Structures are given as structure tokens and as C-alpha cells.
């Protein structure tokens, strides 16, 4: 195995990339280094220092994660193999031979810990291309070096090193790591970027694109209007990899309008004339770059028989075959014949992805004796001091207080101590910090600064007086909303963040992955609550801005109305740029103002409104109160403070805030605010569905064809389109089709519903839909007739004392004469439980009868809760509650 040899002087020093770009004072830089190099692991410090220090990677599963050859080489020469690593060289005293032996036995020991499943996989060049974009835009390249087209690291000196990943990881082990980086690196310096599985795979393919494994043939699969040529912009490469032969079946199912380009080498045993036979609609064959066969694809024709010949010398010949899976009844066959070679499909044995031998990965066979020796050495060399997850006794060094500058780790001479290859500057910082390192007397501001540097938050976020995005990395930050300027691509600054954001919101973003700025390409990584959770409180303590005196609101309704007016298009038209509760009205989609009061501290909101440019020098948002003067003298008497307060009181209603005037209805997502929303048409409950979304964030679907309640769900309401809607949200409960009232002759009779062919149903059962009317909150009361009975069906969204919403349903009847008994089907589902004569469980739904009526249950598919009704002449009422 070829590994990187010597390292240029100076590059071997450990890189803590936040240090390079920050403006920390040297003593604090020293403290950062002490923690990042985990000095406390040997020089028993206080528990708090140990807790803050960066732990070494967990090794119990390293055998499945890391190629054993890499592991051995890295142990032998960490700074040569991965310049910039914080892992020290612990074997400088040993000779070359001894080092090699130590590395071997340590590797055997580490691989003896568990059954290892390491095995390299072939890279997918198509995914790698996509991964390259993701690596540079999603945030990886904020800490790790960006790479040019050849894969050369462009900013290696100031970046957290990765080393030769294709030598280290397999595709599987790298994707496993990226999915859960904190499983093996608990200190969170490598954050979880919360990328989806596909993106993680693409990035892994990019980072491992130089992986070499043996294979017969490389292929790239294209899809689209392939007959226009593979260069067409209507054609997209879909995937790439290795395949054993030219048989289509080897690629799995491939769709129509696909093209495959095969690349590889063919070993010619006997020189001479070779003939090639292709059955295909179109494609081409090149050998050693020379075209042997070419037939342009035609989508309106079938398969052709093609033939070509070439004189080939013995040995490896480069072959490229392009096949278009186009036209009528597409088919593909590739055969060849030559001297002492009968006509046949090209066998795998003649093919290779390279004309050079690629060794097969051989898993290391663990030697028990070597492993046992390695275990001892692991303790003796002090490996166990840092890699403490293996529970091997540590080999402690001198106590912190007894350390001397210029000696041991801090000296230049080799010795039994670990060597970090520190630069003189780094040593200087550490020496400065050493006297207080165990119990550093840091101010809250310094504690913030130290964390922001250790976790390199400042690689993405500016913080006044500390640092921010390095100029050479600025262009890496991109976004999907160019109209927003820099704010649409750069992560927000952290200056004054504690004075700006509510601590609950900081916690959401920092610890729970909440994201507001969907237009930023960079993700907000997660570093782990144990590692950065303290920032939530510290930001609030440290960041201070002057206090604005907020005026008293005497008439809350007037204030909210003024806020409503200002946000809408007839006021300040905030929604022209800002999203409002997820709905975009203008061309730009600036930050959603529906979450303003949830996120921001009111004081900061006041300061920002008065002068946005104070917080973002390049902000696009204009000032509506320049110099404290309102631009809208007709609202609230032109009182600036009252106007800003009015925005706040209005926005405080959050999702419930009345939809501002001019809010776009273009969005397919229909959201509910302060009043009920309806939509109708084709839906999961039929073509005559009526969807109703209530402000308590519970929703229902009513079938106006059968006049029955058909679905309940919680949360977001629905996606709507022309004449159709589809429920969103969660916790959906569906009821089967069927009319609500029926006179069952016997309890074993079927409950009627409209089949495909009973065309006059349900009118033939006496039903007639009569529409609905809306109350002041626009909640509908459905109206229909069942024979002589006029029915009103009304749902009210209410909540219990815990704030949990549910439906109260009121059915009002009016009849000209007493009715013969009739059953009302209140609910139906798989699992029905009768808790009492008025309480029923239907799957996850709890149904209560709150009027005098009593229910019965029926088994069957579905099971049902029926309420027998004997309706008197005149008016009567049935009330129910649906909670789930």
C-alpha cells in the first residue's frame, strides 16, 4: 500500500482551525490548545478540565471503521500520514524496526477487540460529482479544506486535516461515521451536519473517489433524452460503478431512455483480427480510442445488428462501449470472436477496470499473541490515557502543577513523552496558559470565546471582537435566494446573539437542529448538548444592548389591528419580502416573520426595527422609522414606539395571527391562522370532500356526497390545488365510507355506503345535502336532510385543561313528527372498545357521548359505535366529543 511519505516542515503541527482565524489572546489560545490536545489525559487535571477537553476517538469498533493498513501506518507515523492531526507520536524514542513492530502489534490488538467488517467498495463517480458540490456548500469546507478538480486541498494549512480518506475508510464506514459522528468522536468537534442519507452517501463518494478495488468493467448510467447524445442538457448521469460484464441483467432493472457507457480494459490473448457483434438500437464501440462500430440511436426504430473488426495486439486493450437503451423493444448483446476465440459474449475473465493489477483487500488475520502484546503496549505507551473507552489502565504523567516549560511534550527533544510537533508559537501559548490551566479564571465572555474557537463556530459566524468567516472561504457560502444579498448566503452573525434571541430559541437551534433560514445552503451543525449547551445561558449573560422603553398598550385590539395593517400590502408590506407562516407573497422569501416573537427578544426587535443596518451593515431591509420618525403617520397617530409595539402584539399570535392583507394564495399549502379554512374537491375522502382546518390545529374531512365525517388529523392543514386537496399534518384517523344515519332492520345488517354502481345513492336513502353555514370563526355547520329529519352537524375545536385540542360535535335535528328509531354511526374503526355506555375507544380515538344518549358497539370490519336515536317531534340534540 502506498501512503504519503515525508511531510513538509511545519505542516505536521496540530491544526485547531479556529485558532488561526480568531482574535483570542495568547493565554486563551494556550488554554484552547491544552484542551484540544487533551493534556489532562496524562497530567491529571481537575475533572472540569478533563470534561472540557477533546476526547480521542473511541477505538472499540475501529477495526470496522478503518482500513487496517492505514491504522498500522498511522500509528507508526501519525504526523507523516495525517499532517496536522492532534494525535501525538508516542514512539519517537523507538527505532524504525521497533516502531514497525509496535504499530503491528497495536493494530492486531485493536482489531482483536471486535469482529471487523471493513471492506472497501467501488466509488460512484456520478454521486461523487454531486458530493463535491455538497461538500463545498453544506458546510464541510468551512473547517476542512476545499478541493480543486484534481482533489488537491487548497487551504490545507488552516483546515482540519482529513488525511487520505480513500486509504482510511470504506464507503460503508465513512457513511456510518457521517451519520453519527459523535458515536466514535463524542467530543463533538466533528459535528453532526444533519444531512439526509443520500447527501451523506454523495459526500462519501466524493471523499472516497480515489478508492481502488478490483473490478471487471466501469459503467456510467445516463437517463433522459439520450438519443440527443450524452452531452445534451436533457440527459443526466444517474449513477456509476463497476459491473461484472456487458449483460444488461447485471445492472438490474433499467428503464427506457437510458444509456450506458462502459469503460474498461480487455486482455487479448492471441493477436490478430477480432470481430465484434453488437445488437442494439444505437451506440458505439471504441478500442484503444479507435472507433470500431458506431450507430446513432433512433427512438422511432427498433434494434439493429452491427458488426466491426480490428487487428488487435496481445495484452490489455482499452475498451469503451456506449449503449443506448432506446427505440422499439430495446435489446443489447455484445459478442466477439478472434484467433482461438469462438464467437461469444465477452467473458468477465477478459475484463478489468485497469490495465494494472489492483490488489484485492485482504482482511487482517488477528494474531492472538501479537494482540496480547499490543494490549500491554497500549497501556504502556499511554494510548489508553486518551483512548479511554477500552478500559485499559492509563499511564499517568506528572501532575499539571509540576510541569516545566521547555521540557517533555513542550520541548523539542525526543523522549518517552508524546510528541505533538508543536510550533514555537503554539508552545508559547501553552506555556502562558499553564499556570491557570487547571482552574482557569475565565470570564463568561472568555468562556464563550473559547467554545466558539474550539468548535470553530467562527468559521461560519461572525462575532464582533473574535472573528468570523475567513476571506478565502467567504465565496464557499451560497444560498438559494440571491435577492437577499449576503444575508441570503452567509450564516447569521453571533454578535449580540444573546441580546437578540430568546434562550429557548438558541437552544432549539444549537441543540435541536431547528432551522429558520432554509435559503442558506450551509446547514447548522449539531455539536452535542454536553459540549456546547453552556452557550445558551452564557450568551444571555454576556450580550447586552441598551434597553428600549416599551410603551404601554392601552387597547390591545387596536394595537393588534394596527400591526395587522402594517404587515399587509396596504401597510408597510412586510410580506412583500418576508414569508408569513410559511407562505411566500413576493419574489423573495426572506425570513418568516411568523416566528418573530418566538425567536427574538422584544428589546432587540425594537432596536432592529428602528435601525436594521446597525446589526447588518449590508442589510436590504429599509428603515421604516428613520430617525425615530414613522413613515406612516396615519397609523396609531404616527407614534413610532406604539407602531413597533403593535407589530409585536400582532405577531405574538404566531400561527394564529390573522392572515395579513395581500397574503398570497398562490401557495399550494393552505395554512390556518385565526379562523377556520375550508377546501373542497377530489381528496382521500372522495371527489366531494370538504376539508376543514381549525385554529386549534385540528382538522377534519367531511364527504358531502355521503354527508359523513371521514377523517380527522392534527397539525398542518392541507395542500390544495385546483379542485383537490390532500391532508397534511399527523395523527390521521380515517373512517370508512358510509352514510351517517340508517334504520338497520337487524343488527347484523351491513351499514350502507356508495358502491361503484348504486348510482342514486344516498339520495335513494332519503339524503339531500344542503351545504353549510359559517359561524364568526368560519366554522362550518353542515346541513342535510335525512328523510323528514333536517340535520345540522357542527364541529367546534376546543382544548382541554392541558391545552390538548379536540372536537366537540353537535348534531341538531328537527322533524315534523316523531321518527321511528334510527341509528347514528358515530365512529368506525378496526379496534372498538366499550368503556361505558357513553365512552368508547376506536383505535387511537376516544369518543364520548355527552348528551343523554347511549351508544352500542358492533363487531365487524369495520367495528362501529352506533347511537340509537328516537327523535321526538320538533328539535333535539346529540352531542359528542372526539379526542385523539
Amino acid at each position: 500500500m502506498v501512503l504519503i511519505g515525508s511531510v513538509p516542515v511545519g505542516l505536521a503541527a496540530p491544526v485547531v482551525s479556529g485558532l488561526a482565524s480568531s482574535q483570542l489572546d495568547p493565554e486563551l489560545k494556550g488554554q484552547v490548545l491544552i484542551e484540544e490536545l487533551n493534556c489532562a489525559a496524562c497530567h491529571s487535571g481537575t475533572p472540569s478540565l478533563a470534561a472540557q477537553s477533546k476526547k480521542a476517538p473511541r477505538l472499540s469498533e475501529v477495526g470496522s471503521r478503518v482500513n487496517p493498513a492505514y491504522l498500522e501506518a498511522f500509528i507508526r507515523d501519525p504526523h507523516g500520514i495525517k499532517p496536522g492531526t492532534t494525535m501525538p507520536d508516542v514512539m519517537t524514542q523507538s527505532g524504525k524496526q521497533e516502531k514497525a513492530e509496535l504499530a503491528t502489534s497495536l493494530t492486531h490488538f485493536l482489531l482483536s477487540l471486535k469482529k471487523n467488517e471493513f471492506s472497501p467498495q467501488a466509488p460512484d463517480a456520478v454521486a461523487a460529482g454531486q458530493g463535491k458540490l455538497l461538500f463545498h456548500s453544506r458546510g464541510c469546507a468551512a473547517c476542512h479544506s476545499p478541493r480543486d478538480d484534481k482533489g488537491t486541498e487548497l487551504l490545507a494549512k488552516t483546515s482540519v486535516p482529513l488525511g487520505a480518506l480513500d486509504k482510511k475508510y470504506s464507503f460503508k464506514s465513512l457513511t456510518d461515521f457521517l451519520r453519527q459522528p459523535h458515536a466514535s468522536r463524542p467530543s463533538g468537534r466533528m459535528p453532526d451536519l444533519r444531512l439526509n442519507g443520500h447527501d451523506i452517501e454523495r459526500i462519501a463518494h466524493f471523499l472516497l473517489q480515489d478508492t481502488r478495488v478490483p473490478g471487471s468493467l466501469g459503467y456510467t448510467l445516463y437517463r433522459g433524452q439520450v438519443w440527443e447524445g450524452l452531452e445534451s442538457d436533457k440527459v443526466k448521469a444517474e449513477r456509476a460503478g463497476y459491473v461484472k460484464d456487458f449483460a444488461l441483467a447485471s445492472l438490474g432493472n433499467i428503464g427506457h431512455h437510458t444509456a450506458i457507457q462502459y469503460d474498461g480494459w480487455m486482455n487479448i490473448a492471441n493477436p490478430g483480427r477480432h470481430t465484434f457483434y453488437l445488437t442494439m438500437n444505437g451506440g458505439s464501440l471504441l478500442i484503444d480510442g479507435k472507433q470500431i462500430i458506431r450507430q446513432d440511436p433512433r427512438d422511432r426504430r427498433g434494434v439493429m445488428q452491427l458488426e466491426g473488426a480490428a487487428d488487435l495486439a496481445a495484452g490489455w486493450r482499452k475498451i469503451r462501449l456506449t449503449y443506448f437503451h432506446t427505440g422499439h423493444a430495446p435489446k443489447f448483446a455484445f459478442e466477439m470472436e478472434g484467433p482461438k476465440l469462438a464467437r461469444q459474449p465477452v467473458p468477465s475473465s477478459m475484463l478489468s477496470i485497469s490495465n494494472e493489477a489492483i490488489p484485492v483487500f485482504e482482511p487482517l488475520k488477528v494474531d492472538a499473541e501479537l494482540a496480547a502484546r499490543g494490549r500491554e503496549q497500549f497501556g504502556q505507551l499511554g494510548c489508553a490515557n486518551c483512548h479511554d473507552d477500552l478500559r485499559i489502565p492509563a499511564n499517568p504523567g506528572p501532575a499539571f502543577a509540576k510541569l516545566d516549560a521547555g521540557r517533555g511534550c513542550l520541548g523539542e527533544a525526543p523522549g518517552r513523552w508524546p510528541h505533538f510537533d508543536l510550533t514555537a508559537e503554539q508552545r508559547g501559548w501553552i506555556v502562558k496558559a499553564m499556570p491557570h490551566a487547571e482552574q482557569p479564571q475565565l470570564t463568561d465572555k472568555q468562556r464563550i470565546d473559547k467554545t466558539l474557537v474550539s468548535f470553530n463556530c467562527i468559521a461560519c459566524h461572525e462575532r464582533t471582537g473574535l472573528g468570523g468567516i475567513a476571506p478565502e472561504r467567504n465565496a464557499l457560502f451560497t444560498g438559494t435566494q440571491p435577492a437577499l444579498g449576503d444575508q441570503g448566503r452567509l450564516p447569521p452573525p453571533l454578535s449580540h446573539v444573546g441580546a437578540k434571541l430568546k434562550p429557548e430559541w438558541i437552544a432549539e437551534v444549537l441543540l435541536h437542529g431547528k432551522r429558520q433560514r432554509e435559503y442558506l445552503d450551509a446547514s447548522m451543525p449539531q455539536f452535542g448538548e454536553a459540549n456546547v449547551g453552556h452557550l445558551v445561558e452564557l450568551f444571555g449573560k454576556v450580550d447586552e444592548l441598551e434597553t428600549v422603553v416599551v410603551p404601554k398598550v392601552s387597547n390591545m385590539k387596536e394595537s393588534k389591528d394596527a400591526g395587522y395593517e402594517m404587515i399587509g400590502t396596504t401597510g408597510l408590506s412586510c410580506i412583500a419580502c418576508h414569508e408569513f407562516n410559511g407562505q411566500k407573497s413576493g419574489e423573495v422569501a426572506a425570513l418568516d416573520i411568523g416566528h418573530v416573537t418566538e425567536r427574538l427578544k422584544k428589546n432587540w426587535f425594537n432596536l432592529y426595527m428602528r435601525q436594521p443596518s446597525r446589526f447588518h451593515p449590508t442589510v436590504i431591509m429599509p428603515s421604516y422609522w428613520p430617525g425615530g420618525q414613522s413613515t406612516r403617520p396615519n397609523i396609531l397617530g404616527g407614534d413610532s414606539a406604539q407602531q413597533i409595539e403593535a407589530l409585536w402584539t400582532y405577531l405574538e399570535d404566531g400561527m394564529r395571527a390573522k392572515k395579513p392583507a395581500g397574503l398570497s394564495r398562490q401557495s399550494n399549502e393552505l395554512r390556518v391562522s385565526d379562523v377556520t379554512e375550508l377546501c373542497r374537491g377530489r381528496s382521500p375522502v372522495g371527489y366531494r370532500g370538504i376539508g376543514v382546518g381549525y385554529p386549534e390545529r385540528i382538522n377534519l374531512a367531511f364527504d358531502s356526497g355521503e354527508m359523513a365525517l371521514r377523517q380527522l388529523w392534527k397539525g398542518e392543514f392541507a395542500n390544495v390545488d385546483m379542485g383537490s386537496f390532500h391532508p397534511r399534518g399527523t395523527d390521521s384517523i380515517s373512517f370508512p365510507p358510509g352514510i351517517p344515519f340508517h334504520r338497520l332492520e337487524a343488527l347484523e345488517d351491513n351499514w350502507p355506503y356508495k358502491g361503484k354502481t348504486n348510482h342514486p345513492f344516498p339520495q335513494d336513502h332519503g339524503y339531500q345535502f344542503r351545504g353549510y353555514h359559517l359561524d364568526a370563526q368560519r366554522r362550518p355547520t353542515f346541513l342535510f336532510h335525512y328523510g323528514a329529519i333536517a340535520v345540522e352537524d357542527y364541529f367546534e375545536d376546543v382544548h382541554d385543561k392541558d391545552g390538548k385540542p379536540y372536537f366537540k360535535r353537535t348534531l341538531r335535528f328537527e322533524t315534523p313528527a316523531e321518527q321511528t328509531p334510527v341509528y347514528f354511526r358515530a365512529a368506525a374503526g378496526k379496534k372498538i372498545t366499550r368503556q361505558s355506555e357513553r365512552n368508547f375507544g376506536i383505535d387511537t380515538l376516544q369518543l364520548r357521548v355527552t348528551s343523554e344518549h347511549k351508544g352500542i358497539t358492533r363487531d365487524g370490519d369495520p367495528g362501529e359505535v352506533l347511537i340509537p336515536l328516537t327523535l321526538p317531534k320538533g328539535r333535539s340534540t346529540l352531542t359528542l366529543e372526539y379526542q385523539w
Partner: protein
Amino acid sequence: MVNSRFIPALLAVAISPFLHAEEDLGAMWGTAAEEAKYYPIVNIPIPSSVPMRTGGFEVLPDGRLAVGTRRGDIYFIKGAFDTPPKPEYHLFASGQDEIFALSWKDGALTSISWGEVTRISDTDGDGIADNYDTLTNNWGYAEGHEFAFGSKHDPEGNIWVALGLSGSYESHNLFRGWAVKVTPDGKMIPVCSGLRSPGGVGANAEGAMFVVESQGPWNGCCSLKHLKQGAFLGHPASYNWYPYVPEMKTPAVSPNGDSRMGVEKKRVKELVPPAVRFPYIKMGRSISGFQLNQTGGKFGPFDNQLFLGDYTLSIILRATTERINGVWQGACYPFREGLASGIMNVEFSPTGQLIAGGFTTNTQWPVRGTEPFALQRIDWNGVVPFEIKEINIRKDGFLITFTKPVDKQVAARTDAYQITTYTHVYDGSYGSPEVDQTTPRVTKAEPSADGLSVMVRLDKITEDHIHDFDLAKITSRDGLPLVHKKAYYTVNEIPED
């Protein structure tokens, strides 16, 4: 996502997969510049927040324009008729299925959406609808393409509704392919069968109710059909619902294919032939909504005529009707081209402007207009164009009336009139070529004394044929050519005297 249910004038898409947006939509008439001298098109701006995919229009008593949309919203627009338009949009109602017609009566707006007829009103006076009274939802509605167009209230207060076939080919659900009448108290009365993919529904000046039909099986081209009680209008897929109409009997015979309307109407006594046929592409490809011009001259010289929008070609057509031997027939004329989107419906404003609105589904059905949706107005600027005003049939020829006096010398020449006739194959396959061409000889052309009309006598009028007029040679007294030289008269009956 583009809704796939509505594809006017049938699924040609499904039939010819190679049809796409670049398809040749037929030559333009090439008259837009000339038309604009009399009938300029005015854009009514739409705010970006409003998804204005027009389905139906109504003018409210307070002078606002009501627009029902495919999204199921109803907007009230103030200032739409101002010059220039200063529209203010107010959302009156929302949450409906696709709305294809609106009609105001007695303090409520009746909307005809795909699933029902709804009387919508604002009872608490806050300007927003709160009562949605369903008059009926008793027709079948369970498959794609089962849309519903409706009329204004007739004098008895009924709304007439035309119900498209299931998937535009078959009739799987109750009364698909029928026209029904919905009474003010919500009774649904089936009127006639035999529709395929109907468009707008409305009355002519005499109060007879008509529906637009689209080209397709059993329909050689788009047409205007009379909704005669008990009639069968040509497409037999909807025969299966007669058993659900106690007062009607299933027609004794079904139409034969590969025949002619003129032959089959004698076999199937319920069959009523289309009153006005619109030769395909020359005169529209998917005619949609239409309105009767009763502006009392405010829209120029075409009072009491029908104005029809076309979805595919983004044009407006004109039609006239007359009753001959008890059967409706008439002519159609080009009127205005070059609108911005596919046209779904039209409406006259009180000041005599023609409002046209619609949308473009660029992925499914080719449309000449390019805007995703538009609201436009055709204003008459007071200058009378030189046009064929109307053609009426006589025993031995046609009386052609013009909007301005003709040059009588030219008009008296028989060779000033190029007239051909043709008809369509009446068959269950899709559309029809023009067949059975004849070229009648003009025997005499007699201009009236005032020069406003010419009696053109022919050696033969052919029943069941479209009579295709080309009057390119005719000029006005002041030497102007016709703005549109073409007109097409559908002869169902020939008067006896």
C-alpha cells in the same frame, strides 16, 4: 402541480403522444392589427398574490366584477371596468371546488362548481360569504374530467348545468353527458342526453338555452347545441341514464357510426343537430364560455349576438342563431384574436366591455396565449368596423347583413362571393375531416337600397352542410375591405318560403 383533470376539448393528448406545446395551432387569422383599430384589448392587472385562474364571471348589482376561480375562490373586483383599470381585489368566498360559472340573483351569488350548484351569500354584512346553500349535488361526480359548466339564471330562476363525460369518453356516473336544470328550490330536472365535453351554457336573445360542445367522438368539430327538453345531442355514451328519468324513455334506436348527422337525425327522432358548427381550427379548437351581447349598442353593432371564448387559440368568436322549421341553426364569425391566455369564460360589463379570462396549462394542452393566467377586456372604441354582421337563410339563398353599407357595384357581382359547402362524418371516432364538399353557384346578388345587406341566391342549398363564405372581394362604400372576410352558416333546415 398542474391539475390534470381539466383538459378542454378532450384528451387529444392521450391519443397523440407526440402532441406538445410547439404543435402548430393553425394559422392565426392575421387580423389582430386591424381588429385593434376598433376593439383594443386592455389588461386588467392581477396582484401576484392572487391565483386568478378564471372559471366564471358575473357582474354584481354594485358594479363590481365577480370572478370564480379554479382554486375555488370568488373575488369581487372593484374598478375592473375603469379606464385604465384600477382593480381592487376582495376575496368574497373560498374553499370551493373548481368554479366554472357564476350567476347573481336575489342577493346571492350562485356558483356552479364541479360537484354542485351552491347559493352563496353574506348574511352578516361583513363582505365575506358565510352561507353556502347547496341547491343540488345529485349528479355523479367520481372521476377525472367530470366537470360542470352552468348558465345564468333563466327567467324562472333555474340554473342549467352541462355535465362532461367520465374521462371525456364514457359515462360511468349518474347523468354524465347530460344537461340538467336546477330549480330555485333545489330540484334537479334532467333535460337532455348526448353531451360529450361541454363548455359554457347560456341563452340566446330569444331565451332558448344552448351549450357549447367540443370536437371529438360523435362531434366533427366544436358546436353550439340547443338544450331542448328530451333531446339527444349526439354522443350515445349517456343513454344509460334514461332509466333514472321516469318521465323519459330511452331512444328506440342508437345512432349509426360512419354516417351523417342529416341521415341519423331522421333515424333517431330525439337527435337534435348542432345549431352552429365551428369548423375546426379555422373557428376554434376548444370553445369554452360564451355570453349574449345585450349591451344595447355599447359594444358596437353586434347586439343580441353570442360571443364565445376559445381556450386553445386564445380567440373570441361571434355567433348568431335563428329558428327554421322549429330547429335552431345559425352562423359563426371571427371576432378577435391575440388574447394573452387560453380563454375560459367571457362576460359583458354594464358599460359594454367584454371581459375575457382564462389560463394556460402549458404542460397538457397547447395554448396559443402565453400567460399562466390573465384577465383582459375588449373595449369598443366607438368606431364601427366593416364586418359581416349576420347571415340569415332564405328559401333560395342567404341574406348577408353588413355593419356598414357595401359598395353596391361590387356587391352585385355574383363572383364576389366564394361559397363552398361541406359537412362532417358522424361517427364515434375522434373528430372528423370536412367531407362531401360542394360548390354552389351564386345565381344572383342583390344589394339592398341602403347597401347594408345583400340577398345572395344560390342554385342549391345543401341540408346538413356548413356553408363557408369567403367575401374577400366585398368592399364598403368607402372602399374598405372587410375586417374578417369569412363566415360559416350551418344549414339544418331550409325554409319553405
